[in-house]
Structures are given as structure tokens and as C-alpha cells.
């Protein structure tokens, strides 16, 4: 293990991808993912790794290009944000349907309009049902670790699904912070070469991207859903392998000071560590509060959530996106679904916070936690925190 280096997280993400022996990358730069795309292009152009970088005219083509490459058995990477992800929309669900283990870096950014380049989770949430596996980093180190894990997860013979690694735009992508890089030898030990179960080659022809008539489409959906649900087991196993080799722990739902907690607050993404500071301060004041950090968004860890909330009276769920006219925050919807048929479930308060780059401070977490009883009484399914009334 090398000593920590100060590096911008987006640049570090590109360095992590470069450690993974990729064959083909295609990215169309868009704020705030630009530095991933640019730095990876630099690495390949400088000949530091033996890979092809396909310059494309759009995100639609970026994903199409890496899917074609993945079909030939190449290890592939793309990266995007917000409107770029929206532009990939038509292609996104086809990647998991074809079971191509593409890895994507997402610098999460609000979706327009009004036009906004800053962080929230509306981009990934709008593509939630595309069938990609989704994991969230809390900090730069986790982002670096997760990119290396992502290739192993996606390419596992029991998974064979694409995966996106989510990093909050700016809040993570544009911060210079300490990063510990594994050595190339350590990565090689952790991540074996990609062995595709099928690949396009003239010597052994096959057809990919086939038609599914009504007689087969339902079975295709079922097969894909089973693979997605089963991926959780592999993800957990690979995270345990990572911990064994590198000492850093990853779980679908991470817990922080949850022992004896009556109130739990749940975050997804870079707000998690700021929330830890709030929990520390409140614990000092005698408030029995703990933190849950959701690392695995798809497949959603229903069992782990049920286990993690056991014993808590109140669960405060924070969401960085909103389903307009729907049940509120997308994370909270999942959690309500997970707990609906549980005998002793906590009361749930859902706050929508940190939209379009609105800063989230330690004080905000204290207010959300302390204000939870009042919010509960209001009977609203969700509250938009900090909105000027």
C-alpha cells in the first residue's frame, strides 16, 4: 500500500480505472464528470495503459461504443453525469439486458430544469429502473476502491451486469483529498482478467441483442431480475474479499454508532460523513442517535435495511431527489416498502435535502434529527428541508 497522495477525486477515479487493465473507454465529457473523461484520455494517449479511447460525439454513442467493445470481450468503461446520462437513456436498459459488464463512473448532478450543474441524485434516480447495479461512494477513497471492485462485481460469472459507481458531483469529484492507491500488483491479485462467457468473433459466430417476442419477453425479464437480485450475494462476497486484502470495510448498509440508538438517520452518498459529525455531537449531548449509510442502491438491500433499523423508534431518511407528485424521496420509498410488513417498524420521517448543489451542513443534520418528532406529527409523506416558505 502506498502512502496517501493529495489528488482530485475525479482524477483519482480515472487513475483507479487505469489500474484495472481496461481495454476500451468512451466518454463524452460533461460537468462534473469532465475530469474523469479528460484524465483517462490523457493516461491512454500518454501510453501509460494499453487501451483504446474512442472519442464520440455524444453519450448515446459513448455507451453504444463500449457495449460493442464489451460484446467482443473487452473490459470497458464510460463516465457521465446528469443530462449525459439522460442522453444515454435509450441504450441504458439494453446493457444489462445483453448482460454486458460495462463499468460507469457517475458524477451525480441535478437534472435540468432549471438548468443546474450541481450535485443531487436526480440523474441516477431517473435511470433507476434501467437495470444497472448501483453503488455509492461517501468519499474519494471509497470511489477509488469501488471502481476496482466494480469490474470484479460486474464481470463475475454469476452477475454479468453493468454497474455504475456514484460519486456526488463537485462534493466529491472536485475535492482534493488524501487517497491511498493500491499497487498494480495488488490490483492484479484482486481483479483477475476478464473472461467473457461469450464474445463476438468471426471464428465462432453468435448473435447478441436479439428479439424477444411476447412468448419469451417475460422469461427474459425474469431471468434478468433473478440475476440482479442474486448479484447482492456476490457484491457482499467481493466486498469481504476487499476488506481482507485492503482492510477497508464495505457493506450494503454501513452503520455508525447505532448501538442502542432510538433515532436513526439514513444517508446515501457524500452527506454520510458530514452526518457522522452531527451524530458525534448529538451523542455527546446524550441523544441516542445513530447513522445508516446506504452503499448499495441496486439491487436494493431489503434484508439489511430490516436488520439495521431493528430496535429504533424513529428513522429519518434523507433523499437527494424527489419523485414529483409521488411518495417523496426514492430512497425512502424503498425503505417504506422494505418495512411495511414488519411487525415492529420505526416511524419514518423523510427529508428531501441537498438539491441542485444546496449545501448540507452538520447543523442541518442536527435540525433534521431534533425536528423529527414534529415532522412526524405533520403527517406529510415527506418534507423539503430548508425550502424558503
Amino acid at each position: 500500500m502506498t502512502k496517501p497522495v493529495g489528488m482530485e477525486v475525479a482524477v483519482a477515479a480515472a487513475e483507479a480505472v487505469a489500474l484495472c487493465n481496461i481495454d476500451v473507454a468512451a466518454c463524452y465529457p460533461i460537468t462534473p464528470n469532465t475530469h474523469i473523461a479528460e484524465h483517462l484520455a490523457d493516461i491512454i494517449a500518454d501510453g501509460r495503459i494499453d487501451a483504446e479511447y474512442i472519442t464520440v460525439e455524444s453519450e448515446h454513442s459513448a455507451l453504444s461504443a463500449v457495449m460493442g467493445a464489451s460484446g467482443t470481450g473487452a473490459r470497458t468503461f464510460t463516465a457521465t453525469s446528469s443530462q449525459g446520462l439522460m442522453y444515454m437513456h435509450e441504450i441504458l436498459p439494453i446493457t444489462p439486458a445483453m448482460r454486458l459488464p460495462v463499468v460507469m463512473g457517475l458524477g451525480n448532478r441535478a437534472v435540468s430544469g432549471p438548468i443546474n450543474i450541481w450535485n443531487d441524485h436526480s440523474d441516477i434516480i431517473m435511470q433507476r429502473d434501467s437495470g444497472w447495479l448501483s453503488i455509492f461512494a461517501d468519499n474519494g477513497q471509497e470511489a477509488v476502491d469501488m471502481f476496482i471492485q466494480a469490474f470484479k462485481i460486474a464481470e463475475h460469472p454469476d452477475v454479468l451486469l453493468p454497474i455504475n459507481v456514484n460519486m456526488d458531483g463537485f462534493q466529491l469529484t472536485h475535492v482534493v483529498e488524501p487517497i491511498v492507491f493500491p499497487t498494480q500488483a495488488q490490483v492484479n491479485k484482486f481483479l483477475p482478467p476478464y473472461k467473457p462467457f461469450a464474445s463476438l468473433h468471426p471464428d465462432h459466430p453468435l448473435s447478441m441483442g436479439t428479439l424477444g417476442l411476447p412468448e419469451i419477453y417475460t422469461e427474459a425479464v425474469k431471468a434478468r431480475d433473478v440475476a440482479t437480485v442474486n448479484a447482492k450475494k456476490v457484491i457482499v462476497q467481493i466486498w469481504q474479499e476487499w476488506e481482507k486484502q485492503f482492510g477497508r470495510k464495505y457493506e450494503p448498509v454501513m452503520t455508525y454508532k447505532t448501538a442502542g440508538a432510538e433515532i436513526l438517520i439514513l444517508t446515501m452518498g457524500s452527506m454520510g460523513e458530514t452526518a457522522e459529525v452531527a451524530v458525534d455531537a448529538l451523542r455527546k449531548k446524550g441523544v441516542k442517535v445513530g447513522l445508516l449509510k446506504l452503499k448499495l442502491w441496486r439491487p436494493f438491500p431489503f434484508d439489511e435495511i430490516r436488520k439495521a433499523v431493528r430496535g429504533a423508534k424513529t428513522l429519518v431518511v434523507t433523499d437527494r431527489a424527489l419523485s414529483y407528485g409521488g411518495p417523496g424521496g426514492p430512497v425512502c420509498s424503498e425503505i417504506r416498502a422494505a418495512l411495511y410488513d414488519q411487525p415492529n417498524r420505526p416511524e419514518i420521517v423523510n427529508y428531501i435535502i441537498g438539491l441542485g448543489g444546496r449545501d448540507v451542513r452538520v447543523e442541518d443534520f442536527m435540525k433534521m434529527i431534533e425536528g423529527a418528532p414534529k415532522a412526524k406529527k405533520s403527517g406529510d409523506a415527506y418534507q423539503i428541508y430548508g425550502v424558503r416558505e
Partner: protein
Amino acid sequence: MLEIRWHGRGGQGAVTSVELLAMAAIDEGKFAQGFPSFGPERRGAPVEAFNRVDTKQIKIRSRIYNPDVSVVLDESQIGPAVVAGLKPSGTLIVNTAKKAGEVRDLLKKKNADYAGKIATVDATAIAWHELGVPITNTTMLGALLKVTNVVKLDALKEPVEHRFGRIAQKNLKALRRAYDEVQVR
């Protein structure tokens, strides 16, 4: 934890400064963050950038509202924003040919009362002389180091050389001059 807020204008290199300082601090074995205010950084528009430096892991990811140090790259920005939330025990570091007392009076005139320490250095003059351009970001790093000792002067050598290549030595010279010439009142 030391929290630093930089005030500059788009193109003056405030973001580069916070990156260089974070890299230097991390290289010294400390924990640090360096990040921009995440705005659309248009040339000439007022921008903020931030540093946190600590001996422990830094968890907070919000902007800095109560800095220990406020660094002002450009005299024209002197006003309420540069002292907003600045700790009374902290320091305002300004690039100006004016004396500390004059800066304090100017702040008062702009309805920004500030009783803490003020450090001044004519970074623009240094930058013109050493770099041939009025870009004061690396120069002001020198002043910051003198006031805070947040990292050793030598710790910036490698990050500056990596970032600036053939003009690195000129930048390092400007930085050292500001380190020597800054006045704290």
C-alpha cells in the same frame, strides 16, 4: 482543524491555490481538503475556494462558514463577504499595497466591522516583478504559510513544480518573497 476560505476572481487561480495547499499538506502526512465553490467559474466573477487541514480524518463536506483564515487575492473584493463568519481569533490576509490599518478603515466604510488580525502583502507587485503577470495565487500561498505555518515552505515545492513545470521556479520565488514580505497587524 484549520479552515481557510479564499476569495478571488475567476482566472486568478484561487482553485489552483487550494489544490496545491491540500496536496502539500497531504504530502506532509496531514489530512486536507481543497475544493472550489463549485460555481460556473467565469473569468472575473467573484469566486470562493476552500481548504481544511487537520491531523485527523476530515469528515465535513460542506462549505466553510466560519474560517480561521480568509485570503483575499484581489483588493477590489474587500467588503463584508471576505470577513463574513471569520473567527475573531482568525486572520484576514489581503493582497494590497495598503497598510493593515487602511484595510480596516476600508472595511468599516463598507459596513464590514472586523476586529481580528489583518495581514497585508503587495502580491500584485511581487507577481508582476517575478512572473510578469498579475496572477497572485501562488504568491498569496507564501503569505498564508507565514501567517499560519499550516505546511512547511518546502512542502509546496513538489506540487508547484508538478503544476507549473518550466515556470515553477518563478512561482516559487514569488511565493518565498510573499512569505518574507507579509506584514501582520
